[in-house]
C-alpha cells in the first residue's frame, strides 16, 4: 500500500488526480468496512475505494496490475457464465502473475479438487444472454 487511506483523501482534496488513480491503495482494500463504520464524519470510505478502482480501470491509470487483472478475470467469468469459476480464475491468475510460485500452489489446488471443493468446468446459468443484455445496458449507462 503506497498511501494510507487518509493520505488518499488528502490527495483527493489537493486535486492530485493522477497520483490518486495511480495509487495501489484502493486495490489493497479488502472491503472490511471498518473505516466506513468508524469514520467520525460518516464518509463511506469503502464505496469511495470502489469508485477510485473503477475510475482507474476506465482510465487505465493503475501501475500495478495484479489486483486489477484479478478483478477483470473474475468478472470475465461472470460475464461469460453468470457464475464465478474458481478453477479457471485460479489457474489463469497464477499463470499470469505468479508463474514462479505456481508449483507451491499445486497442493492447494489439488486438495481443492480431491476434496470436491472445485470444479474443472464452469457452471453456466440458463439465461446468460439476459444477464449479458443487462450488463451491456449497464455499461452504456456508466459511460454515458
Amino acid at each position, binding site marked *: 500500500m503506497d498511501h494510507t487511506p*487518509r*493520505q488518499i483523501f488528502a490527495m483527493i482534496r489537493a486535486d492530485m488526480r493522477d497520483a490518486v488513480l495511480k495509487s495501489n491503495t484502493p486495490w489493497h482494500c479488502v472491503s472490511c468496512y*471498518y473505516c466506513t*463504520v*468508524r469514520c467520525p464524519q*460518516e464518509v463511506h470510505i469503502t464505496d469511495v475505494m470502489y469508485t477510485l478502482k473503477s475510475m482507474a480501470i476506465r482510465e487505465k491509470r493503475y501501475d500495478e496490475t495484479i489486483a486489477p487483472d484479478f478483478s477483470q478475470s473474475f468478472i470475465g467469468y461472470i460475464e461469460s457464465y453468470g457464475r464465478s469459476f474458481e478453477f479457471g480464475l485460479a489457474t489463469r491468475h497464477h499463470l499470469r502473475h505468479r508463474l514462479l510460485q505456481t508449483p507451491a500452489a499445486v497442493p492447494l489446488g489439488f486438495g481443492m479438487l480431491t476434496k470436491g471443493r472445485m470444479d474443472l468446468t464452469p457452471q453456466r446459468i440458463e439465461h446468460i444472454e439476459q444477464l449479458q443484455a443487462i450488463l451491456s445496458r449497464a455499461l452504456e449507462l456508466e459511460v454515458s
Partner: protein
Amino acid sequence: MTVESMSQTNHQERIGVYVCHCGTNIAGVVDVEEVARWAAEKLQRRGVIIARDYKFMCSSLGQELIENDIKELGLTRVVVAACSPHLHEQTFRTACARAGLNPYLCELVSIREQVSWVHTDTAAATEKSKAVVAGGVERVLYHEALEPLHVPIHPATMVVGGGIAGIQAALEIADAGFPVYLVEREPSIGGHMAQFDKTFPTLDCAACILTPRMVSVGTHPNITMLTWSEVTDVTGYVGNFTVTVKKKPRYINTDLCTGCGICWEKCPKKVIDEVFEAGLGYRKAVYTPFPQAVPKYPVIDHENCTYFQKGTCKACEKFCPTGAIAFEQEEEYLTLQVGNIILATGFDILDARRVAQYGYGRYANVFTSLEFERLSNAAGPTSGNIVLRDGMTVPKTVGIIHCVGSRDRNYNNYCSAICCMQSLKFAHLIHERTGATVYNFYIDIRTPAKAYDEFYQRVLGEGTIFCRGRVAEVSDVALNPGEEGKLVIQTEDTLAGRQRRIPVDMVILSVGLEPRQDAKEVAKLFGISCSADGWIIEKHPKLDPVVTMTEGILVAGCAQGPKDIPATVAQGAAAAVRVLARIQQGQISLEPVRASVNEELCSGCRICNGLCPFNAIMFHEDRMVTEINPALCQGCGTCVAACPTGAITGTVFSNEQVLAQIDGLLMHNVEPGPLEPAAPA
C-alpha cells in the same frame, strides 16, 4: 434615504415604515431602498406617510430617526422591517414610548431571519420583503394601545441541581438576603466536581476548594437544602411558580442523626457504588456518598438493604447511638412557592460500552475518565494509588484516548470541551505519581482558556508522548514481541503517516459529556426546550446564555452545554444575578397578550370551557356566560380560535390583526385603486 408620500391624505392613522439595512446583513440581499420607496408609494393609501431605510435601525441614531418622526410628523403607528422580534421588538417599542407613542402601536417584521438570510435571489427577496412590510402595515392598523401586565415576583428561588453551578447560584442569592431552595436528587450536594481529585490547569485539590462552599450551603440561614429529592411538578409562571418536590425517604431521622458513621460501619451489605465511585468502588446499603458529604446524614438504599429485601437485619438500628434509624419513613411531597427557577442539572458521561472497539467492559484495564478520577482521588477506592483493576499493579505504560464519543457523528457530533485538558491533567498525574510512560492519542489539542496552553506545554515538557490520529481499536491480541499480556492500541499516526501498534498496561478513555439521560423529561417538566443534542436551549447563545425562552426559568452549568468549572461557576453566578435583579424590582412587566370575553356576544355554549390548561376560563351558571381570569390566562389564544360567536378576543393577536396581515402578505392592499383603511375596532 427618505421617501415622503406625494400626497398627504386625511387618513386617521399616520404610519411610518422603517427598513433596516443591518449593514449588509439585509441590504446585501434585499434592495432595501426599493422596499422603502415602494412602501411610501404603494402603501400610501393605507396610511403610510413616510418610509425610510437606514443602515442600522437599532442604533441610537436609527431609533432617534423614529422618535423624531413620531414627534414631528405625528405618527400614530410604526412598522420596522428588520430582524426577528425576538431580538429587537423591545428596542423599537421603547423608542416609540420615549417619543410618546404607545409601544404596542409598533410592529417589527423580520426581513433578515426570514428573508435575507434564507434567500439568495435579490429580486425574489425584495418582493417578499415588500409583502412582509405590507403585512406589517395592514396589521398595525388594528393594533391597540395597551399597557403591560405587572406581575409580582415571589422572593424565593429554586435551584435544581447541587453541583458547583447550583451551589454557586444558591450562595449568591442567599448571600444577597433572599431565600433559596436547593434541590438535589443524590444524598449529598457536590455533583461531579466532588468526584474529582485535582482541577486543571492549576491542579488545585477539588475537595479543598469545593468543600468550604458545600459547608456554606449547608449552614446558610437562607438556603433550604432538599437533598435526596426531585421536582415532580411545576405550575404557574414567572414570579409565581408552584413547585412540587418529592422527598425520597432517607429512612434516617435527621433530627437525631449526628452523622457518626456507626451505621455504615455495621451494615453488612456491600454494593458497588455506580454513582459517586463511578462503579469503581463499594459502599454500604446505608451510606453517605463521600466523607465530606453535605448534609452529613446517610440514606438507606431500599433496593439493597437486607432488612427491606429480606425482612431481617436492622444492624444499623441496633447500633445507632441516637436511635435515628427510621425504617417507617415514607416519601413526602412538598409544595413550594418560588418566583424563579435555576436549572443546574449537569451532565452524564457517554456510556463507553457504546464504543465497542475500545473494549471498555471487556478488558479489565480500560477505564473511563470518571473512573480514573476516582482512581487518582486520595479519598477514592485505592486511596489515590494509580493501579490496574487488580487493585495493586502499577502501570508502566498508559494510553489516554481523547475524543471518545465526541466529534463523531456515530455518537456525538460536538466537542465536549473539557476532555483535552482533563486528559492532560491525567497525563501529568500519572507521570508524577507512577513515573509511567504516558501516550496521548488525540485528534486536535484544544486549550483555549487562560493558562490552558501553558499547561499543555508543561505536560509536553514532562515527556508525555503525543500521537495524533483517531485510535482504531484497543485489543489484547499480541501479534508482535512485547505485546503479550498488554493492551494494544492500534492507530494511524497521521503526523508520521503510518500505522502504529502501541502496547500499554492501562487505557483511559476520555469520554464525552452528554445531556442527562432524563434531560428531555426535565425540559418538559419546566416548559423549556432542548437542542437536537439534548442540551437546554438558552435565550441567546451569546447575549443571553443563562436565561431560557421561558420567563423565570434560568439555566447554568453543563445543563446548557459542556463546559469547564470556571465557566460553570460564572454561569451559576450570572443566573443568580439575573434572578436578584428580578427580585429587587419586585415585579415584572409581561406582554399584555390575554384573552377576554365580550359577555354581550357570549352564547354560553361552553365550547371554550374545556380548552384551557391553566384553568383561566370559568363559567357563570347564573348569567350563563363565560369569563376569563386575566391573572391565570397565558395568552395562547386557543379559546379565541374556538369561540363560534367571536365573543372571545385576544389582545396583540386578534382576528382582525391576523386577517389583515394575511391580506397584506398577499398584497391585497397594493393594487389597484384607493381604499380607506378599515377603521380599527
